[in-house]
Protein backbone atom coordinates (compact mmCIF):
# COMPACT_ATOMS: atom_id res chain seq x y z
CA UNK A 1 0.00 0.00 0.00
CA UNK A 2 1.29 3.44 -0.86
CA UNK A 3 1.51 5.90 1.98
CA UNK A 4 -0.83 4.27 4.46
CA UNK A 5 -2.20 6.70 7.03
CA UNK A 6 -1.67 4.19 9.80
CA UNK A 7 0.73 1.27 9.81
CA UNK A 8 0.46 -1.20 12.66
CA UNK A 9 3.22 -3.75 13.11
CA UNK A 10 3.54 -6.63 15.55
CA UNK A 11 1.03 -5.10 17.91
CA UNK A 12 0.38 -7.23 20.96
CA UNK A 13 -1.84 -6.16 23.78
CA UNK A 14 -2.36 -7.83 27.10
CA UNK A 15 -4.76 -6.90 29.86
CA UNK A 16 -3.55 -8.74 32.94
CA UNK A 17 -2.77 -12.25 31.69
CA UNK A 18 -5.28 -12.06 28.85
CA UNK A 19 -3.74 -11.81 25.40
CA UNK A 20 -6.26 -9.61 23.62
CA UNK A 21 -4.55 -8.45 20.44
CA UNK A 22 -2.20 -10.97 18.85
CA UNK A 23 0.50 -9.97 16.37
CA UNK A 24 -1.55 -7.37 14.61
CA UNK A 25 -0.04 -6.20 11.33
CA UNK A 26 -2.17 -3.87 9.28
CA UNK A 27 -2.09 -0.84 7.05
CA UNK A 28 -4.92 1.62 6.90
CA UNK A 29 -5.29 3.64 3.70
CA UNK A 30 -5.51 7.40 3.83
CA UNK A 31 -8.86 9.08 3.06
CA UNK A 32 -10.76 5.84 2.73
CA UNK A 33 -13.24 3.98 4.89
CA UNK A 34 -11.67 0.98 6.56
CA UNK A 35 -14.15 -1.38 8.16
CA UNK A 36 -13.15 -3.73 10.95
CA UNK A 37 -15.33 -6.82 11.04
CA UNK A 38 -15.38 -9.82 13.31
CA UNK A 39 -17.44 -11.70 15.85
CA UNK A 40 -18.19 -10.24 19.27
CA UNK A 41 -15.25 -10.20 21.65
CA UNK A 42 -12.59 -10.59 18.95
CA UNK A 43 -10.87 -7.32 19.90
CA UNK A 44 -12.24 -4.76 17.45
CA UNK A 45 -12.94 -2.13 20.08
CA UNK A 46 -9.59 -2.75 21.72
CA UNK A 47 -7.77 -2.32 18.40
CA UNK A 48 -9.66 0.89 17.71
CA UNK A 49 -8.94 2.32 21.15
CA UNK A 50 -5.28 1.42 21.01
CA UNK A 51 -5.02 3.79 18.02
CA UNK A 52 -5.57 6.82 20.25
CA UNK A 53 -4.21 5.11 23.32
CA UNK A 54 -7.45 5.03 25.26
CA UNK A 55 -6.35 1.52 26.16
CA UNK A 56 -3.88 3.26 28.51
CA UNK A 57 -6.80 3.77 30.88
CA UNK A 58 -7.02 0.06 31.69
CA UNK A 59 -5.39 -1.41 34.74
CA UNK A 60 -2.48 -3.70 33.91
CA UNK A 61 -2.22 -3.18 30.15
CA UNK A 62 0.91 -4.17 28.32
CA UNK A 63 1.36 -3.08 24.74
CA UNK A 64 4.21 -3.94 22.40
CA UNK A 65 4.87 -3.37 18.72
CA UNK A 66 4.35 -0.11 16.91
CA UNK A 67 1.57 2.03 15.52
CA UNK A 68 2.88 4.51 12.99
CA UNK A 69 0.58 7.42 12.27
CA UNK A 70 2.02 9.93 9.79
CA UNK A 71 5.40 8.29 10.32
CA UNK A 72 5.37 8.75 14.05
CA UNK A 73 5.16 5.82 16.44
CA UNK A 74 2.40 6.85 18.82
CA UNK A 75 3.30 4.14 21.31
CA UNK A 76 6.74 5.55 21.97
CA UNK A 77 6.46 9.18 20.96
CA UNK A 78 7.63 11.86 23.33
CA UNK A 79 4.85 14.14 22.20
CA UNK A 80 1.95 14.91 24.49
CA UNK A 81 -0.74 12.25 24.29
CA UNK A 82 -3.43 14.94 24.05
CA UNK A 83 -1.90 16.15 20.75
CA UNK A 84 -2.15 12.65 19.34
CA UNK A 85 -5.71 12.25 20.50
CA UNK A 86 -6.72 15.54 18.89
CA UNK A 87 -5.81 14.05 15.53
CA UNK A 88 -8.58 11.49 15.95
CA UNK A 89 -12.27 11.98 16.48
CA UNK A 90 -13.99 9.19 18.39
CA UNK A 91 -17.56 8.07 17.90
CA UNK A 92 -18.68 5.47 20.40
CA UNK A 93 -21.33 2.80 20.35
CA UNK A 94 -23.75 5.17 22.00
CA UNK A 95 -23.52 8.94 22.20
CA UNK A 96 -21.75 10.51 25.16
CA UNK A 97 -22.52 14.20 24.88
CA UNK A 98 -20.70 16.45 27.33
CA UNK A 99 -22.79 17.70 30.28
CA UNK A 100 -23.29 21.17 28.82
CA UNK A 101 -25.43 22.89 26.23
CA UNK A 102 -25.44 22.10 22.51
CA UNK A 103 -23.29 25.08 21.57
CA UNK A 104 -20.67 24.34 24.20
CA UNK A 105 -20.48 20.70 23.18
CA UNK A 106 -19.02 21.84 19.88
CA UNK A 107 -17.11 24.80 21.26
CA UNK A 108 -15.50 22.73 24.03
CA UNK A 109 -12.76 21.22 21.88
CA UNK A 110 -11.96 24.60 20.35
CA UNK A 111 -11.85 26.34 23.72
CA UNK A 112 -9.44 23.86 25.25
CA UNK A 113 -7.16 24.44 22.27
CA UNK A 114 -7.20 28.12 23.15
CA UNK A 115 -9.68 29.39 20.54
CA UNK A 116 -11.91 31.67 22.58
CA UNK A 117 -13.03 34.39 20.18
CA UNK A 118 -16.83 34.50 20.29
CA UNK A 119 -17.36 35.32 16.61
CA UNK A 120 -14.98 32.58 15.55
CA UNK A 121 -16.69 30.05 17.82
CA UNK A 122 -20.16 31.02 16.56
CA UNK A 123 -19.04 30.44 12.99
CA UNK A 124 -17.38 27.13 13.71
CA UNK A 125 -20.30 25.81 15.74
CA UNK A 126 -22.67 26.57 12.89
CA UNK A 127 -20.29 25.09 10.33
CA UNK A 128 -19.93 21.76 12.11
CA UNK A 129 -23.59 21.48 13.00
CA UNK A 130 -24.42 22.00 9.34
CA UNK A 131 -21.87 19.41 8.37
CA UNK A 132 -23.80 16.73 10.28
CA UNK A 133 -27.25 17.98 9.20
CA UNK A 134 -28.10 19.12 12.71
CA UNK A 135 -28.13 22.89 12.29
CA UNK A 136 -31.69 23.25 11.09
CA UNK A 137 -32.95 21.12 13.97
CA UNK A 138 -31.14 22.94 16.76
CA UNK A 139 -30.37 26.47 15.59
CA UNK A 140 -33.10 27.95 17.81
CA UNK A 141 -32.04 26.10 20.91
CA UNK A 142 -28.27 26.14 20.94
CA UNK A 143 -28.34 26.96 24.67
CA UNK A 144 -30.45 23.94 25.56
CA UNK A 145 -28.66 21.08 27.28
CA UNK A 146 -27.38 18.40 24.93
CA UNK A 147 -29.23 15.90 27.12
CA UNK A 148 -32.49 17.20 25.64
CA UNK A 149 -31.64 15.89 22.16
CA UNK A 150 -32.76 12.52 20.85
CA UNK A 151 -30.20 9.71 20.73
CA UNK A 152 -29.82 10.08 16.96
CA UNK A 153 -29.30 13.82 17.29
CA UNK A 154 -26.84 13.28 20.15
CA UNK A 155 -24.78 10.94 17.99
CA UNK A 156 -24.64 13.50 15.20
CA UNK A 157 -23.69 16.12 17.79
CA UNK A 158 -20.86 13.85 18.95
CA UNK A 159 -19.66 13.52 15.36
CA UNK A 160 -19.75 17.30 14.92
CA UNK A 161 -17.91 17.79 18.22
CA UNK A 162 -15.23 15.37 17.07
CA UNK A 163 -14.85 17.12 13.72
CA UNK A 164 -14.56 20.49 15.44
CA UNK A 165 -11.12 19.70 16.83
CA UNK A 166 -9.99 19.24 13.24
CA UNK A 167 -8.77 15.65 13.24
CA UNK A 168 -7.45 13.68 10.23
CA UNK A 169 -8.85 10.39 11.42
CA UNK A 170 -12.31 9.34 12.59
CA UNK A 171 -12.58 6.29 14.81
CA UNK A 172 -16.11 4.95 14.97
CA UNK A 173 -17.08 1.98 17.12
CA UNK A 174 -20.45 0.66 15.97
CA UNK A 175 -21.68 4.26 15.78
CA UNK A 176 -25.12 3.34 14.48
CA UNK A 177 -25.95 0.41 16.72
CA UNK A 178 -28.13 2.49 19.07
CA UNK A 179 -29.74 4.54 16.31
CA UNK A 180 -32.94 4.44 14.30
CA UNK A 181 -32.66 3.65 10.57
CA UNK A 182 -32.91 7.28 9.46
CA UNK A 183 -30.19 8.51 11.82
CA UNK A 184 -28.04 5.53 10.85
CA UNK A 185 -28.43 6.42 7.23
CA UNK A 186 -27.46 10.04 7.89
CA UNK A 187 -24.30 8.90 9.66
CA UNK A 188 -23.44 6.51 6.81
CA UNK A 189 -23.96 9.20 4.19
CA UNK A 190 -21.82 11.60 6.23
CA UNK A 191 -19.03 9.06 6.36
CA UNK A 192 -19.05 8.68 2.59
CA UNK A 193 -18.89 12.46 2.27
CA UNK A 194 -16.24 12.82 4.94
CA UNK A 195 -13.84 10.31 3.45
CA UNK A 196 -12.76 12.96 0.98
CA UNK A 197 -11.00 14.68 3.83
CA UNK A 198 -10.69 12.14 6.60
CA UNK A 199 -9.37 8.65 7.15
CA UNK A 200 -12.26 6.72 8.64
CA UNK A 201 -12.04 3.51 10.62
CA UNK A 202 -15.37 1.93 11.36
CA UNK A 203 -16.18 -1.07 13.50
CA UNK A 204 -19.49 -2.61 12.63
CA UNK A 205 -21.53 -5.74 13.10
CA UNK A 206 -23.82 -4.93 10.23
CA UNK A 207 -22.51 -6.74 7.17
CA UNK A 208 -24.76 -4.83 4.81
CA UNK A 209 -23.48 -1.55 6.19
CA UNK A 210 -19.93 -2.77 5.65
CA UNK A 211 -20.70 -3.75 2.05
CA UNK A 212 -22.30 -0.36 1.43
CA UNK A 213 -19.49 1.85 2.61
CA UNK A 214 -16.23 -0.06 3.04
CA UNK A 215 -13.23 0.64 0.82
CA UNK A 216 -10.92 -1.54 2.83
CA UNK A 217 -11.75 -4.42 5.17
CA UNK A 218 -10.02 -5.98 8.14
CA UNK A 219 -11.49 -9.23 9.41
CA UNK A 220 -10.58 -10.26 12.94
CA UNK A 221 -11.13 -13.45 14.89
CA UNK A 222 -10.13 -14.13 18.50
CA UNK A 223 -7.67 -11.26 18.66
CA UNK A 224 -5.97 -11.94 15.34
CA UNK A 225 -6.36 -10.46 11.90
CA UNK A 226 -7.46 -13.30 9.64
CA UNK A 227 -7.74 -11.41 6.41
CA UNK A 228 -7.47 -7.85 5.14
CA UNK A 229 -7.58 -6.06 1.84
CA UNK A 230 -9.67 -3.95 -0.54
CA UNK A 231 -13.39 -4.33 0.12
CA UNK A 232 -14.26 -5.75 -3.28
CA UNK A 233 -11.65 -8.46 -2.97
CA UNK A 234 -12.60 -9.48 0.56
CA UNK A 235 -16.33 -9.52 -0.05
CA UNK A 236 -16.26 -11.14 -3.50
CA UNK A 237 -13.45 -13.53 -3.02
CA UNK A 238 -12.46 -14.22 0.58
CA UNK A 239 -9.48 -16.54 0.91
CA UNK A 240 -9.86 -17.81 4.44
CA UNK A 241 -12.41 -20.35 5.65
CA UNK A 242 -13.23 -18.24 8.73
CA UNK A 243 -14.00 -15.18 6.65
CA UNK A 244 -16.24 -17.18 4.37
CA UNK A 245 -18.23 -18.69 7.16
CA UNK A 246 -18.54 -15.30 8.88
CA UNK A 247 -19.99 -13.82 5.71
CA UNK A 248 -22.39 -16.74 5.46
CA UNK A 249 -23.64 -15.86 8.93
CA UNK A 250 -22.25 -18.94 10.66
CA UNK A 251 -21.22 -16.86 13.69
CA UNK A 252 -21.52 -13.27 14.82
Amino acid at each position, binding site marked *: MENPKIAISDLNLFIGKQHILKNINAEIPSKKITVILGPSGCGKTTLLKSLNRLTD*LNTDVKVSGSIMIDNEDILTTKRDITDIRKKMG*LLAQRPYP*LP*MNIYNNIAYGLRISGRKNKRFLDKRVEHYLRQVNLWEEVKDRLRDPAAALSIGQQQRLCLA*RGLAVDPDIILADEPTSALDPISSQTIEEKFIELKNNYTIILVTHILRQARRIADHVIFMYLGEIIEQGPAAQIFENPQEEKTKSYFQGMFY
Partner: protein
Amino acid sequence: MNIKKIEERFFRVLMFCSTVIIATTLMLIIFSILYKGLPSVSWEMLTSTPKGGFYFGKGGGVLNAIIGSLYLSLGATFLAFLFGLPLALYMNVHLIKHQKLVNGIRFVLDLLWGVPSIVYGAFGFTIMIFFGIRASLLAGIITVTLFIIPIMVRGMDEVLKSVPRGLLESSLSLGSTQAETSYRVYLKQCIPGVITAILLSFGRAIGDAASILFTTGYTDYIPTSLNQPTATLPLAIFFQLSSPIVEVQNRAYASAVILVTIILIISILARVFSSKFHKNKINF
Protein backbone atom coordinates in the same frame (compact mmCIF):
# COMPACT_ATOMS: atom_id res chain seq x y z
CA MET B 1 -51.42 -18.37 46.55
CA ASN B 2 -48.04 -19.21 45.12
CA ILE B 3 -44.63 -18.52 46.61
CA LYS B 4 -43.94 -15.53 44.33
CA LYS B 5 -47.05 -13.74 45.50
CA ILE B 6 -46.28 -14.37 49.17
CA GLU B 7 -42.76 -13.13 48.66
CA GLU B 8 -44.00 -10.05 46.83
CA ARG B 9 -46.48 -9.29 49.62
CA PHE B 10 -43.91 -9.90 52.36
CA PHE B 11 -41.49 -7.38 50.87
CA ARG B 12 -44.23 -4.87 50.25
CA VAL B 13 -45.32 -5.04 53.90
CA LEU B 14 -41.69 -4.87 55.01
CA MET B 15 -41.06 -1.72 52.96
CA PHE B 16 -44.26 -0.15 54.16
CA CYS B 17 -43.44 -0.82 57.83
CA SER B 18 -39.90 0.51 57.51
CA THR B 19 -41.13 3.67 55.86
CA VAL B 20 -43.75 4.21 58.55
CA ILE B 21 -41.32 3.52 61.41
CA ILE B 22 -38.65 5.85 60.05
CA ALA B 23 -41.10 8.59 59.18
CA THR B 24 -42.85 8.52 62.56
CA THR B 25 -39.57 8.51 64.48
CA LEU B 26 -38.38 11.57 62.56
CA MET B 27 -41.73 13.29 63.02
CA LEU B 28 -41.63 12.55 66.75
CA ILE B 29 -38.16 14.02 67.11
CA ILE B 30 -39.05 17.13 65.16
CA PHE B 31 -42.37 17.47 66.92
CA SER B 32 -40.85 17.21 70.40
CA ILE B 33 -38.14 19.73 69.53
CA LEU B 34 -40.72 22.14 68.17
CA TYR B 35 -43.17 21.52 71.00
CA LYS B 36 -40.64 22.21 73.71
CA GLY B 37 -38.51 24.69 71.81
CA LEU B 38 -40.79 26.94 69.81
CA PRO B 39 -42.37 28.73 72.80
CA SER B 40 -38.90 29.76 73.97
CA VAL B 41 -37.66 30.98 70.58
CA SER B 42 -37.83 34.73 70.75
CA TRP B 43 -36.32 37.72 69.03
CA GLU B 44 -34.10 38.23 72.03
CA MET B 45 -32.93 34.63 71.85
CA LEU B 46 -31.82 35.14 68.26
CA THR B 47 -30.28 38.57 68.50
CA SER B 48 -28.47 38.88 71.80
CA THR B 49 -25.62 37.21 73.59
CA PRO B 50 -26.04 35.79 77.12
CA LYS B 51 -26.52 38.48 79.74
CA GLY B 52 -25.82 38.18 83.48
CA GLY B 53 -27.99 35.44 84.92
CA PHE B 54 -28.69 33.89 81.51
CA TYR B 55 -27.83 30.49 82.82
CA PHE B 56 -30.32 30.92 85.64
CA GLY B 57 -33.16 31.67 83.24
CA LYS B 58 -32.70 35.44 82.96
CA GLY B 59 -32.33 37.60 79.82
CA GLY B 60 -30.09 37.16 76.80
CA GLY B 61 -29.85 34.83 73.85
CA VAL B 62 -27.62 32.45 71.95
CA LEU B 63 -26.41 34.77 69.20
CA ASN B 64 -22.84 33.92 70.21
CA ALA B 65 -23.53 30.22 69.54
CA ILE B 66 -25.39 30.89 66.27
CA ILE B 67 -22.57 33.01 64.88
CA GLY B 68 -19.94 30.66 66.28
CA SER B 69 -21.58 27.59 64.75
CA LEU B 70 -21.88 29.30 61.37
CA TYR B 71 -18.23 30.42 61.42
CA LEU B 72 -17.08 26.99 62.49
CA SER B 73 -19.13 24.86 60.12
CA LEU B 74 -18.85 27.11 57.08
CA GLY B 75 -15.11 27.43 57.65
CA ALA B 76 -14.66 23.69 58.05
CA THR B 77 -16.93 22.85 55.09
CA PHE B 78 -15.02 25.30 52.92
CA LEU B 79 -11.64 23.87 53.95
CA ALA B 80 -12.82 20.31 53.50
CA PHE B 81 -14.17 21.20 50.05
CA LEU B 82 -10.87 22.83 49.09
CA PHE B 83 -8.99 19.59 49.77
CA GLY B 84 -11.79 17.11 49.26
CA LEU B 85 -12.92 17.95 45.74
CA PRO B 86 -9.45 17.66 44.17
CA LEU B 87 -8.89 14.38 45.98
CA ALA B 88 -12.21 12.94 44.84
CA LEU B 89 -11.58 14.03 41.24
CA TYR B 90 -8.02 12.74 41.35
CA MET B 91 -9.21 9.32 42.51
CA ASN B 92 -11.71 9.07 39.68
CA VAL B 93 -9.88 10.63 36.75
CA HIS B 94 -6.12 10.51 37.24
CA LEU B 95 -6.02 7.24 39.11
CA ILE B 96 -8.52 5.50 36.82
CA LYS B 97 -6.03 2.80 35.93
CA HIS B 98 -4.94 2.23 39.52
CA GLN B 99 -8.14 0.73 40.82
CA LYS B 100 -6.38 -1.14 43.63
CA LEU B 101 -4.92 2.06 45.01
CA VAL B 102 -8.26 3.85 44.67
CA ASN B 103 -10.05 1.06 46.50
CA GLY B 104 -7.40 1.28 49.22
CA ILE B 105 -8.06 5.01 49.60
CA ARG B 106 -11.80 4.33 49.74
CA PHE B 107 -11.27 1.74 52.44
CA VAL B 108 -9.20 4.13 54.57
CA LEU B 109 -11.76 6.91 54.13
CA ASP B 110 -14.56 4.56 55.16
CA LEU B 111 -12.60 3.63 58.29
CA LEU B 112 -12.05 7.30 59.10
CA TRP B 113 -15.75 7.93 58.53
CA GLY B 114 -16.50 5.36 61.22
CA VAL B 115 -14.18 6.89 63.83
CA PRO B 116 -16.29 8.64 66.51
CA SER B 117 -15.99 12.40 66.48
CA ILE B 118 -14.77 12.49 70.08
CA VAL B 119 -11.60 10.77 68.84
CA TYR B 120 -11.04 13.59 66.36
CA GLY B 121 -11.60 15.99 69.27
CA ALA B 122 -9.00 14.19 71.36
CA PHE B 123 -6.59 14.12 68.42
CA GLY B 124 -7.06 17.84 67.81
CA PHE B 125 -6.54 18.48 71.49
CA THR B 126 -3.28 16.54 71.55
CA ILE B 127 -1.98 18.50 68.57
CA MET B 128 -3.03 21.76 70.25
CA ILE B 129 -1.13 20.89 73.39
CA PHE B 130 1.89 19.96 71.31
CA PHE B 131 1.91 23.34 69.58
CA GLY B 132 0.78 25.21 72.67
CA ILE B 133 -2.45 26.49 71.11
CA ARG B 134 -5.48 27.05 73.28
CA ALA B 135 -9.07 26.23 72.46
CA SER B 136 -10.03 28.50 69.58
CA LEU B 137 -12.13 28.89 66.48
CA LEU B 138 -9.15 27.94 64.32
CA ALA B 139 -8.41 24.76 66.26
CA GLY B 140 -12.10 23.86 66.02
CA ILE B 141 -12.25 24.50 62.28
CA ILE B 142 -9.20 22.31 61.67
CA THR B 143 -10.53 19.48 63.83
CA VAL B 144 -13.96 19.56 62.22
CA THR B 145 -12.37 19.73 58.76
CA LEU B 146 -10.46 16.51 59.48
CA PHE B 147 -13.62 14.96 60.78
CA ILE B 148 -15.77 15.77 57.74
CA ILE B 149 -13.22 15.27 54.95
CA PRO B 150 -13.86 11.50 54.72
CA ILE B 151 -17.60 12.13 54.56
CA MET B 152 -17.23 14.74 51.86
CA VAL B 153 -14.71 12.85 49.75
CA ARG B 154 -16.63 9.58 49.86
CA GLY B 155 -19.87 11.40 49.11
CA MET B 156 -18.34 13.02 46.02
CA ASP B 157 -16.52 9.83 45.11
CA GLU B 158 -19.76 7.85 44.99
CA VAL B 159 -21.22 10.17 42.36
CA LEU B 160 -17.98 10.64 40.43
CA LYS B 161 -17.45 6.93 40.12
CA SER B 162 -20.84 6.52 38.48
CA VAL B 163 -19.69 8.62 35.51
CA PRO B 164 -19.53 6.19 32.58
CA ARG B 165 -16.15 5.33 31.08
CA GLY B 166 -17.46 6.49 27.70
CA LEU B 167 -17.70 10.08 28.88
CA LEU B 168 -14.11 9.99 30.10
CA GLU B 169 -12.99 8.55 26.78
CA SER B 170 -14.99 11.15 24.86
CA SER B 171 -13.46 13.98 26.78
CA LEU B 172 -9.91 12.65 26.42
CA SER B 173 -10.34 11.93 22.73
CA LEU B 174 -11.25 15.59 22.20
CA GLY B 175 -7.76 16.35 23.46
CA SER B 176 -8.65 17.33 27.02
CA THR B 177 -6.04 16.81 29.68
CA GLN B 178 -7.03 14.92 32.79
CA ALA B 179 -7.39 18.18 34.71
CA GLU B 180 -9.69 19.62 32.05
CA THR B 181 -11.69 16.41 32.09
CA SER B 182 -11.96 16.65 35.89
CA TYR B 183 -13.09 20.23 36.22
CA ARG B 184 -14.94 20.83 32.97
CA VAL B 185 -16.64 17.50 32.43
CA TYR B 186 -16.77 15.36 35.58
CA LEU B 187 -17.56 18.24 37.89
CA LYS B 188 -20.30 19.56 35.59
CA GLN B 189 -21.84 16.12 35.26
CA CYS B 190 -21.77 15.62 39.04
CA ILE B 191 -22.63 19.05 40.46
CA PRO B 192 -25.93 17.95 42.04
CA GLY B 193 -24.19 15.03 43.76
CA VAL B 194 -21.23 17.16 44.80
CA ILE B 195 -23.59 19.65 46.41
CA THR B 196 -25.32 16.84 48.25
CA ALA B 197 -21.93 15.70 49.58
CA ILE B 198 -21.14 19.25 50.72
CA LEU B 199 -24.51 19.53 52.45
CA LEU B 200 -24.09 16.20 54.17
CA SER B 201 -20.70 17.31 55.50
CA PHE B 202 -22.04 20.68 56.50
CA GLY B 203 -24.82 19.00 58.45
CA ARG B 204 -22.30 16.84 60.29
CA ALA B 205 -20.05 19.84 60.92
CA ILE B 206 -22.72 22.09 62.39
CA GLY B 207 -24.36 19.34 64.40
CA ASP B 208 -21.37 17.75 66.07
CA ALA B 209 -20.54 18.48 69.70
CA ALA B 210 -17.86 15.98 70.65
CA SER B 211 -15.12 17.07 68.26
CA ILE B 212 -15.32 20.70 69.38
CA LEU B 213 -15.74 20.16 73.09
CA PHE B 214 -12.02 20.50 73.84
CA THR B 215 -10.88 22.22 70.70
CA THR B 216 -13.21 25.19 70.32
CA GLY B 217 -14.15 25.82 73.93
CA TYR B 218 -17.11 28.01 74.83
CA THR B 219 -17.63 31.69 75.50
CA ASP B 220 -20.45 34.17 75.91
CA TYR B 221 -18.92 36.52 73.35
CA ILE B 222 -18.96 36.57 69.60
CA PRO B 223 -15.45 35.74 68.38
CA THR B 224 -13.59 38.54 66.63
CA SER B 225 -10.58 36.51 65.59
CA LEU B 226 -9.61 32.93 64.79
CA ASN B 227 -7.62 32.69 68.00
CA GLN B 228 -10.55 33.11 70.34
CA PRO B 229 -12.62 30.37 71.87
CA THR B 230 -16.03 30.17 70.27
CA ALA B 231 -19.50 29.13 71.34
CA THR B 232 -21.47 26.67 69.22
CA LEU B 233 -25.10 25.56 69.13
CA PRO B 234 -24.53 21.86 69.91
CA LEU B 235 -22.58 22.79 73.03
CA ALA B 236 -25.15 25.45 73.89
CA ILE B 237 -27.78 22.73 73.77
CA PHE B 238 -25.60 20.39 75.81
CA PHE B 239 -24.86 22.91 78.58
CA GLN B 240 -28.41 24.23 78.79
CA LEU B 241 -29.94 20.79 78.78
CA SER B 242 -27.85 19.77 81.79
CA SER B 243 -29.17 22.68 83.81
CA PRO B 244 -31.75 21.90 86.53
CA ILE B 245 -33.69 25.08 85.70
CA VAL B 246 -36.69 24.48 83.43
CA GLU B 247 -36.44 27.80 81.51
CA VAL B 248 -32.84 27.01 80.65
CA GLN B 249 -33.77 23.49 79.56
CA ASN B 250 -36.45 24.89 77.27
CA ARG B 251 -33.87 27.18 75.76
CA ALA B 252 -31.87 24.08 74.87
CA TYR B 253 -34.81 22.94 72.77
CA ALA B 254 -35.14 26.44 71.34
CA SER B 255 -31.46 26.26 70.36
CA ALA B 256 -32.16 22.93 68.69
CA VAL B 257 -35.00 24.55 66.73
CA ILE B 258 -32.57 27.25 65.60
CA LEU B 259 -29.97 24.65 64.61
CA VAL B 260 -32.48 22.65 62.58
CA THR B 261 -33.76 25.81 60.92
CA ILE B 262 -30.24 26.84 59.90
CA ILE B 263 -29.65 23.43 58.31
CA LEU B 264 -33.01 23.67 56.58
CA ILE B 265 -32.31 27.12 55.15
CA ILE B 266 -28.85 26.16 53.93
CA SER B 267 -30.20 22.96 52.35
CA ILE B 268 -32.93 24.81 50.49
CA LEU B 269 -30.49 27.47 49.26
CA ALA B 270 -28.11 24.78 48.04
CA ARG B 271 -30.90 22.87 46.29
CA VAL B 272 -32.10 25.99 44.50
CA PHE B 273 -28.52 26.70 43.52
CA SER B 274 -27.88 23.17 42.31
CA SER B 275 -31.09 22.92 40.28
CA LYS B 276 -29.53 25.55 38.03
CA PHE B 277 -26.92 22.99 37.04
CA HIS B 278 -29.09 19.95 37.09
CA LYS B 279 -30.39 20.41 33.57
CA ASN B 280 -26.98 19.83 31.98
CA LYS B 281 -26.48 16.48 33.60
CA ILE B 282 -26.63 13.67 31.07
CA ASN B 283 -28.63 10.65 32.16
CA PHE B 284 -26.74 7.67 30.87
